[in-house]
């Protein structure tokens, strides 16, 4: 059984190897992996829910856009995604619901989700990819 996500060696930045039985699973695991690296402590209490759709030219670009969407509220709203549902449709379209809470503390900063050698491959167990984050 492949782990949903695992950090792999990278000299300067962060790299995650992510697996999923299907694309929705892959996108979910990529988000869980990325959010786990940020070491966020949310403020207890009120949660804000948002629903959105994302479309891209190809699945890799959709994956980058999805992860960027989860990072964006950190700086601008001082809010972090604490729960989410995502469904990938037609390989270039996704629907998501995210739940946000204000941040009490955050230990890590991700500057960007990169396209470095980004390639979503089909494997026996479903899908696999490596994502490099500039930190």
């Amino acid at each position, binding site marked *: 059984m492949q782990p949903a996500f695992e*950090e792999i*060696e*990278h*000299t*300067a*930045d*962060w790299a995650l190897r992510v697996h999923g039985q299907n694309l929705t699973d892959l996108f979910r695991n990529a988000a869980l992996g990325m959010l786990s690296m940020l*070491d966020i402590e949310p403020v207890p209490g009120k949660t804000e829910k948002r629903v959105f759709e994302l479309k891209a*030219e*190809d699945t*890799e*670009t959709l994956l*980058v*856009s999805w992860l*960027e969407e989860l990072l*964006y509220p*950190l*700086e*601008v709203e*001082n809010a972090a995604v604490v729960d989410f549902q995502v469904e990938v449709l037609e390989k270039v379209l996704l629907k998501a619901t995210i739940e946000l809470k204000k*941040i009490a503390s*955050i*230990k*890590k*900063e991700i*500057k*960007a*989700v*990169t*396209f*470095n*050698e*980004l390639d979503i491959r089909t494997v026996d167990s479903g899908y696999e990819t490596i994502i*490099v984050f*500039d*930190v």
Partner: protein
Amino acid sequence: MVEKKDLIKITDVTWEIPTSYREDMRVPVRIFADETLIDAALGDKSFDQAVNTTTLPGLVSPVVVMPDVHQGYGFPIGGVAASRYPNGIISPGAIGYDINCGVRLLASGISLEDVRGELPDLASALDANCPSGVGVGGSVRLTTKELDKVCRQGSTWALKNNYARRDDLERTEEQGQIHGADPSSISSRAKQRGKGQLGTLGAGNHFIEIDVVEEIFHEAAADAMGLAEGLLTVQIHCGSRGFGHQICSDYVREFQSAVKRYGIKLPDRELVCAPLNSPEGKRYKAAMACAANYAFCNRQVLSHHVRRSFEQVLAGRVPDWDLHQVYDIAHNMGKTETHIVDGEKVRVCVHRKGATRAFGPGFEGLPEVYKPFGQPVLVPGSMGTASWVLLGTEESMTKSFGSSCHGAGRVMSRRQAKREVRGQDLRQELEAQGIIIHAGSMPGLAEEAPKAYKDVDAVVDVVVRAGIAAKVARLRPVVVIKG
């Protein structure tokens, strides 16, 4: 992966990967490194990423790799690639997400011996006055209109708003203002991120450091810079914050389709690019200039807070607590420059990612006081180790498109560093060496442990032996502030 047998040794500190290594290479790779640094770089994908970069259309030979090179994303950190106008390309990923990440050096007439007892107070004042860490907002909150002004004016905005002195600007690369910036080329998301972050240090490898000048190697140049042994200096290392990160992200995403439109095939999607004369290329260049100006202004506002901190602590305790600017230099930038290629003057866009411009004596953009010596090159070391002040040389113009190294260069992953080093232990170890550390996060401190980096003295030794820089002064840290 590139192996040692694939490298041709030209001199003890110059190596080449010829175009015969891989069919799609358009130009060779020239590497400045000694044997030890070559071996270190072969431990990751640095050279493979440099080879990938040689496939970009319109490059002028060669792609240059500095001794502090390490694996990055797309183009390695510590790389220089020049593309020819008008048909060459501009690649956001080959400049980096932290557009105009750079270093500023301030110098003083304050002797370390006179203020040794005040260093803890200075460290606390810097920590309190200079916002740092993840998600920490700046001291200056900008409206959209003011942000647009920062984008166009860079350090000039800081001068108009009392965060700068005129001689700060004279001693900043491009006087702290890249022309051609156009705020309409920037997304509303980038602007949202930029509004609240001016005057912030950020996290990761960014820092403010008080150093003491340990040794002078070039008396006349050091005199011109106001550096003397035993005196305190301050280094500020940071960039364009979330504003620049968003701009680069937006364009790397947008250029995924631009490469298809222009029929450009690349081995790595992070290297996406657009022709310099295309609407997409021009728009990115105008957006990059906005981020570059924001970064110059950011370091300027932080300098203001550093000066304020010195005044708060040292006024009345020493006769003169002033800090004057030595220089401010970018190490992630795409610059339009003219270089001599095969005996001809050629206009190029020089991509420097983790590399510093290092122009030699007499060049037009230098302040008069530096013209006889060349441009100051600032090379921060890893935390707790030396930093260097160097000079650009005439030879760098012919060997490396007027470029030199930018730091020590990582050699160990953050993951491994955290496995091997505890932040708390490291702090105690550095404090035992007389270095005061203020850090936002202990795991973050561990990631930046000196052992995660190459030996900065060895890196500097290579660029000096290669003739692309000359030594002026070696600095030793006494206070380190990290986000």
